[in-house]
């Protein structure tokens, strides 16, 4: 009868071995449960409570509220522009880190390493392309995100400061893109950056402009110093500052509430929201 209760391969084994194997299987499952349970403490959420815990107990998800209004997550409301910008920032960090493995920020080597990345490294062309297009994309999505927030009046109290943080993030995005522009060290790079830094250099009065330009370029023309400064700003300085402001930005969204976040009633007839968003 024991054979019938455990069909298949195990059923055909001698009882002693079968018992040991079954105990081993149970023990293995226990270890697996211990490990996965220690990583994700609540298991796959199947209940209302479980879904709440899934958000609360995850470092990545806990910036979300547990509940939100359906209005707030309608695609035609936000178009996901802030989220897409953040996604592009993460993509840029990933592809940028990989590019750093090969790239050398020196006037002698920069251009050649870019060519090597494209022609010698596996998926190098793809890597550089993705980095370039994501960078352009991020400038566009951050700008459009600002427009979305403006046109939906989402800068209104109590979110004034987060709007200012957003403007700072826009400026940082411009600067990140601009510092990255020089790194390929091709004709496009140095002349675009020459034009850009000359604009900075026109800050009045002239000695201030000249000082700021010199600070940025480290020389009277775009050369090794400029390349190293732009590289350092591009790969560590600006991303660090941007990350800090990003953390504040996200934190404040959560604390100030979505502009169409958790309110307790439906809208009034005149279309104005009845409550302060709170997510």
């Amino acid at each position, binding site marked *: 009868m024991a054979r019938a209760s455990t069909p298949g391969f195990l059923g055909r084994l001698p009882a002693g071995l079968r018992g040991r194997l079954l105990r081993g299987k149970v023990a293995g499952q226990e270890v697996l449960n211990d490990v996965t349970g220690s990583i994700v403490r609540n298991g796959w959420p199947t209940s209302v409570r479980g879904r709440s815990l899934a958000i609360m107990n995850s470092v990545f*998800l806990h910036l979300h509220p547990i509940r939100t209004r359906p209005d707030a997550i309608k695609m035609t409301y936000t178009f996901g522009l802030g989220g897409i910008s953040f996604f592009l920032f993460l993509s840029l960090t990933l592809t940028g880190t990989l590019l750093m493995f090969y790239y050398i920020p020196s006037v002698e080597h920069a251009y050649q390493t870019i*060519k090597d990345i494209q022609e010698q490294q596996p998926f190098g062309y793809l890597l550089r392309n993705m980095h370039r297009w994501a960078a352009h994309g991020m400038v566009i999505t951050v700008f459009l995100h600002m427009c979305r927030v403006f046109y939906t009046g989402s800068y209104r109290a109590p979110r004034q400061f987060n709007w200012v943080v957003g*403007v700072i993030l826009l400026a940082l995005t411009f600067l990140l893109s601009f510092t990255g522009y020089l790194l390929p060290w091709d004709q496009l790079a140095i002349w675009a950056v020459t034009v850009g830094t000359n604009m900075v250099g026109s800050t009045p009065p002239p000695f201030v*402009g000249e000082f700021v330009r010199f600070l940025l370029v480290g020389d009277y023309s775009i050369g090794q110093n400029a390349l190293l400064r732009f590289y350092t700003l591009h790969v560590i300085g600006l991303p660090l500052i941007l990350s800090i402001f990003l953390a504040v930005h996200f934190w404040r969204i959560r604390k100030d509430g979505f502009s169409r976040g958790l309110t307790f009633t439906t809208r009034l007839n005149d279309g104005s929201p009845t409550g302060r968003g709170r997510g």
Partner: protein
Amino acid sequence: MAIETRPTGVTVRDRNVAEQKGAPVLTSSARSRPVTPAAVEADTVQVWPHLVVIEFLGAIVFTIMLVLLGTLANAPLEPLANPDKTPNPSKAPWYFMNLQELLLHMNSALAGVIVPTIALVAIAAIPYIDKGGKGLGIWFYNERGRRIAAFTAVYSAAVIGALIAFGTLPIRDAFGSWVNVDTAKPANSGGLSGLTQLFAGIFGDTATAKGVLIEAVTGWIFPTLVMILFIAILVVLLKILFKGLNTAELTIGLFTGFFATYVVLTFVGQFMRGHGMQLYPPGALPETDYGQILRMWGRG
């Protein structure tokens, strides 16, 4: 159950603070409905799965799109940098081409630093100027806001387009001839030569005075007046066309003006400026000058 029915949001203290600041918190009709856990639940959905799924799918879709784009279109790489060989035209990255376009029409300090700084500070200051609580979370504030935005977009694009066309005229040369001083034949001097002679007393000679005058007038005074004038006309037009214009609606108009200006200047700078930063029809830029966009699609 205790967790998901507990309102995560408005506490009594928050409400008082917000009400003092004039933000609408709960309107009378909202107040008439008691804030019960059941009301919260009826009004909302759980972020897991409703939002998390969107974010997850969004990340997948955009990863695929980015990989596809990276496969299909190559990042441009021009010949090795050569400090001795200036390309004509030299252009800034496209998102700064709006400033470079401005640079053609006014003093570089005004175009490259002062105007963008004022624009950024003004944008950052929006929530401290437009302080009303109405319109939160509503596209374009109301139906009128939509029309204000549409009107301003058309107005700004038309004005900027006209001003760029006006900029092709030899304004500097014309003004230069007005302030020209012809010592050999005083009759050939420009109509404003008296001004030059007046300034020559300060700057020593008439040539310097003439240069300073030309830059001051065509580089600073005239462009500043033009910018102020067309913004003022916009405000007056909005006030006439939309009776009882409030701060929120005016803000929509001004921001839309900025947005349209930014887009038009960027487009003209990037796609319509060729050799010597001369104006070309879109798509007619000589390949030898600036084929970056066209070359993007080819290898290498």
